[in-house]
């Protein structure tokens, strides 16, 4: 278990300065979740347009660096994308965390792949997996709610 793998600079940066924090205006979908074992919370807001594109999104949350960074990275990656992209990247992400697979979606830039992949260190820290995945699960629930 390499601590450095878990607390990479990208993660610390997103943890300290999470992007898209707050409640975005005119959101159409939202969902919240929390981890009863540790008290971490996340609330995802999505503004979907008629074409099922994520026009805007944001999150509110309390939690560790991993969970904040994960939510922040999620919102950065999927902003402006459509729902089919969201589902694919979500699958890809959860697969990466669970089965150590690589991100396969072609439409991402190298930078974006590096960013997402920074969360893969969590594989070696099973008790922290939920921190990394909660926002992603919650985002899907937000979409499915409507």
């Amino acid at each position, binding site marked *: *278990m390499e*601590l450095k793998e*878990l*607390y990479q*600079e990208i993660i*610390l940066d997103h943890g*300290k300065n999470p992007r898209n924090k707050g409640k975005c205006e005119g959101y159409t979908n939202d969902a919240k979740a929390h981890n009863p*074992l*540790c*008290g*971490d*919370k996340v609330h995802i807001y999505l503004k979907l347009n008629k074409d099922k594109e994520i026009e805007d999104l944001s999150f509110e949350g*309390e*939690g*560790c*660096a*991993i969970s904040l960074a994960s939510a922040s990275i999620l919102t950065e990656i999927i902003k402006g994308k459509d729902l089919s992209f969201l589902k694919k990247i979500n699958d890809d992400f959860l697969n990466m965390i669970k089965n150590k697979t690589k991100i396969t979606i072609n439409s991402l830039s190298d930078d974006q792949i590096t960013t997402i992949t920074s969360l893969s260190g969590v594989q070696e*820290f099973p*008790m*922290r997996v939920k*921190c990394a995945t909660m926002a992603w699960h919650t985002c899907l629930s937000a979409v499915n709610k409507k």
Partner: protein
Amino acid sequence: MDIKNIKKEFPIFKQKINGKPLVYLDSANSSQKPKIVIDKISNFYETEFSNVGRSVHTLAVKATNRFEATRDKVQKYLNAKHREEIIFTKGATEAINLVATSYGKKYIDKGDEILITELEHHSNYVPWNFLRTEKGAIIKFAQVNESGDVEIEEIKKLITSKTKIIAITHISNVTGAVLPIAKIVDLAKEKNIPVLIDGTQGAPHSEINMQEIGCDFYAISCHKMYGPNGLGILYMKKKWVDDLPPYQGGGGMINEVKKDDITFADAHTKFEAGTMQTAEVVAFAESLNFIEKLGIKNIASHENKVLQYGLEKLKKNNTVNIIGDPKVRGSVLCFTLKDIHPHDIATILDDDGVAIRAGHHCCQILHDKLGIPATARASIGVYNDKEDIDKLSDAIKKCQKVFQN
């Protein structure tokens, strides 16, 4: 046996964690087990195991005698008046559920009040909540003050003619506050209100004497007292043992079973349904032997030295915020670090072999009050020493370094 060398008695300390010696500071969660306790479990299974109280063959007799001898030992240890006052349970949680259910069935109705505190572990709140949702009882919370204590005046204020039970923790597993339980019991006695003490954090770290405390119920987790998992003890004053209805139904707790009616056994037997945790009960006698050999007062004073050293040391680091400043503090030290979440602290400390717990420690009400969702907790057991604290302190610094990047 000597407290200075006591780590040797605990096989777990032979382990390396991430290549470093284990610094176990999670005893409030569960304590490690000395070799004599572990050996007793295997020895019992290997040479004497049988179900207790049911058969008359030699193994059953041996097992039953050992099992009941532990009850006698616990009775003496707690200075309970009668052996029937000692009930074995799955844990403190089951012990409190038992009281809430059995006492609640008979004595708690709509509008009746249950008085607990904001310090309570979920185990001493959720069971009472069932009486609220099912019967319309009211739960009142005695407030915790700035220093993390619950004052006796606060309890006094909340007692009314409707108060049917007071259920309070002996020692908070977050602020470490040692509550004035004997005084609270005195106060309650004047008003004829029974008192349950959640002794989960009290029993492993202080002398407990049922005659001095005078409470009606006292709940213990054996696994936090250097004992096996899956075992707890409920001390229940004889008058309640005789008076309260049974909790679970099953083998062993009956008197006579007919198709239209069932009568129940006397004494502790009424509350011990089904096959009990034989090996665990037998081995717990060794946990008490271990504690008695060292002396619970010596254990307490050793732990207190380590704790005070820890408080001093951490206070020197001014990004450390220590939770609570109670008048008397038990073996618990909760803290937060500026801008670093407790979960991250726990993970980074673990990299240095330092095992602490992060979260709300099953005390959400208290954390809500403190206005923080989680804290980091270092808790002390007999095997901890100042060196462990030094390592904790160093690991905390490393934590800050990781996050300064």
